[in-house]
């Protein structure tokens, strides 16, 4: 499939359904999240995005791992998979490879995506399938009651597990995504639903692996993140298509700048995907030919 095909797939979907509202993409399952959790903002922005893009719910699948944010699929009225810890991306990869016409979105938290699932993050960036990956980053493991995650500051001492802080440097999601070859890197803020909706729409429409880091405050274990509302700011340079520029931008960045940081159109993952067969054999004839290779 080419980038053009992906664009036209979105167009086809838009044309095929009556307009749906954001609430039509919500399920009736009540979220387990704490009052004031940033993830509510992400859920709202995602349903608005799906409505804005007029994606038929049956053509959308949202796949997650384990953690507070990974509860997201159950709260949506699209196809969903709530899998095991850290493996949202491989599950999404298999689904997209098998069903390339679907819009597949992987979602989860910073522990799920950058720690236990860190290897998959690297390789999903490299693979450049047409997937969207939303990481709701609150710099803490919330579901297990407040342990340090890969994006936690090394001197954060409020976890009983690491009372002296982790002492290890923070995982740099955007820089690592860039180094691993992601073709779309953006940062949004759960408290900015309109800006986040624009970013998610661009990510879904981007033909390739689109990584969106969403700063999503944890009111319960990281109450100081309520200050993000005042601290976030637009990225100073705006999006760039130049990898070297993006590297410099991301390195100088304070981690609180919002917007599309990097986008590049590169070939979509196609290895192992069947090319149109040159012959006009039926599937049964092709299987018979394979059988015959071993029979003589």
């Amino acid at each position, binding site marked *: 499939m080419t980038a053009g095909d992906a664009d036209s797939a979105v167009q086809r979907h838009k044309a095929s359904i009556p307009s749906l509202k954001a609430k039509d993409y919500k*399920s009736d*399952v009540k979220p387990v999240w704490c009052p004031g959790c940033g993830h509510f903002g992400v859920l709202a922005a995602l349903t608005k995005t799906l409505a804005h893009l007029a994606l*038929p*719910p*049956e*053509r*959308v*699948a949202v*796949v997650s791992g384990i953690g507070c944010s990974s*509860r997201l*699929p*159950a709260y*949506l*009225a*699209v*196809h*969903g*998979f*709530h*899998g*095991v810890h*850290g*493996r949202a*991306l*491989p*599950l*999404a*990869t*298999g*689904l*997209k*490879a*098998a*069903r390339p*016409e*679907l819009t597949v979105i992987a979602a989860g938290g910073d522990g799920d995506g950058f720690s236990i699932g860190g*290897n*998959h993050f*690297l*390789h999903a960036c490299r693979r450049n399938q047409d997937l969207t990956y939303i990481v709701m980053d609150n710099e803490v493991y919330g579901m297990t009651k407040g342990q340090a995650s890969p994006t936690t500051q090394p001197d954060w001492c409020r976890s009983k597990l690491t009372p002296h802080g982790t002492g290890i440097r923070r995982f740099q999601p955007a820089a690592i995504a860039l180094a691993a070859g992601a073709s779309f890197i953006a940062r949004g803020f759960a408290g900015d639903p309109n800006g986040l909706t624009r970013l998610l729409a661009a990510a879904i429409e981007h033909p390739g692996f689109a990584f969106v880091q969403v700063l999503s405050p944890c009111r319960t274990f990281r109450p100081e993140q309520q200050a993000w509302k005042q601290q976030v700011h637009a990225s100073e340079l705006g999006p760039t298509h130049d990898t070297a520029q993006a590297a410099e931008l991301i390195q100088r960045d304070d981690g609180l700048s919002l917007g599309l940081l990097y986008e590049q159109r590169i070939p979509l993952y196609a*290895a*192992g*995907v*069947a*090319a149109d*067969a040159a012959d006009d054999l039926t*599937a049964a004839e*092709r*299987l018979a*030919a*394979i*059988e015959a290779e*071993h*029979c*003589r």
Partner: protein
Amino acid sequence: MPGPRDASAPLTVAVTGAGGSGAVTAGLILLEAVAAAGLYGLLRRSAGPQIRGGESAALLRFGPEPVHCAGDRCDLLAALDWANHERFADEIPLDAGSLVLADPATGPPPAAVVESDTRLREMGFSSSAAERDGGRANMVAVGAAGALAGLPLAALLDAAGRTLADKGQAVVDAARACIRSGHALAKPEDRLREPVPPPPAVPQRWHINGNEAAGLGALRAGVRFVAAYPITPASEMLEWLAPRLERLGGTLLQAEDELASVNMLIGSAFGGVPALTATSGPGLSLMLEGIGLAVASETPIVVVDVMRGGPSTGIPTKSEQSDLNAALYGLHGDAPHLVLAALGIADCAHTVAWAVQLAWQLQTAAIVLSDQSLGQSRMVGEPAPATVPPVHHAAPGDDGPFRRYSVTEDGVSPMSVPGETGLAYTADGLEHDPAGAPSSRAADHAAQLDKRRHKLLAHDYGPDWAEITGAADAELCLVTVGACRGAVVEAAERLSEAGRAVRTVALRLLAPLKRQALLDAVGGARVLVVEQNHGAQLFHYLLAEQALPEAARALARPGPLPLRPGEIAAAAAALMDPDGGSP
């Protein structure tokens, strides 16, 4: 036991040599010649862990009847050289009846060969090859060994043409010249078999190894997505599948690790596309959490475990049946799933296809046990017929609202796939209610646990749960699994020829265990459980399931050496006649 000159008894011919000597190529040509002569054959390979340059052995057993296992001894050894021969000494049992062809240019035979009291014939493989332009010693050995084993010269020449076709006509011509030379070097009085008359027509047979057969079974059943992480000795299945899946419009994706590959299968199957992967012990361990997710989310996936020596990295290039416990008990929680074992090389196709079908009928994970001795051994034999139709998911009906995990009479719930309007649900590894919403309520947990167990236990598996030979009123029943079946059946045949009534039951379906069917099959016979591992894993599983009669015994021996029919027959005879005597 029939003597070596009995033309109906299978003959074992080994070719050994240092890396690059072409021992394996010689074995492949001999196997093709066996086919061209209208015979059946089994070619096992033994290689060390070296990437290149290690010594290797090709072990061919052939005869007029299908061959399913290694023999007790080696009739003919063609040693291209003696490099590291001691590593093969156990795998190539020589005795006074054996004949060894040795090239004097490579030095004297090792002490173990001399001490085995075997007949030695010096044969100038390398000097004869040197007389031919492009000649190679291994092809001289093919000619000599083929002649002594009774393979017609025409079959050997034909086989060289087929096997070496990719290398160009000059290579084929040189090989054929060397085969003629070798054939002429063999003395008629040394023949182990008189030349086989050429068959009126060469019968259509499978030329296949177990990894290829397993891949073919997957394609037959409709698998169109494979996630792959390389591992010995399963990689060949994945490599065989890659281009062929593509031809069928499917996809093979190389994953970053086995944690990824198993979850990719779940993604594909959730999307409605049948998915499979192949791995070995270490990879299976990494996949277990994902297999549990497939069980809990009721997503059909198939994992083929081509077993090797374990634990840990173990003996990657050699066979063992020591992953039974991992396959049966490795999942956390109460996680009923399917465990099957292929009973032979061709049966890899049938068992894998059946596993795919069962996984989709029952919406669960299936682990198929193969092993190195099946996966990497090549046979000329009868094809496994395609009996399993391609699979589909059980679509929801029109009766009432769609509830993905509804508790049904047979335990199988309706399943939708993305793209089907109005049937969206969230699959979940969390315990859930019938609609799929996460639930920690006791009633939901009990209902879903019951349903996931019930759907496996209530299913009618038909007669394929085991292969059974021998009379129902046998005095002894040999119960086995997987690749051991070949040697067990041959042992039983020998015992029967000696007047002992022996039945064999080879389990293809390990979980859920058809306990009553097994007890019925065993009847009143004493039982010897035969398996290739150190811990008697099958024996203990059957004991725990109360599927064995009193006084059952185990013959459990670890790899890497194959269980041989002779040792099984001896153990069986000892059990039947504890005071001595032989079959």
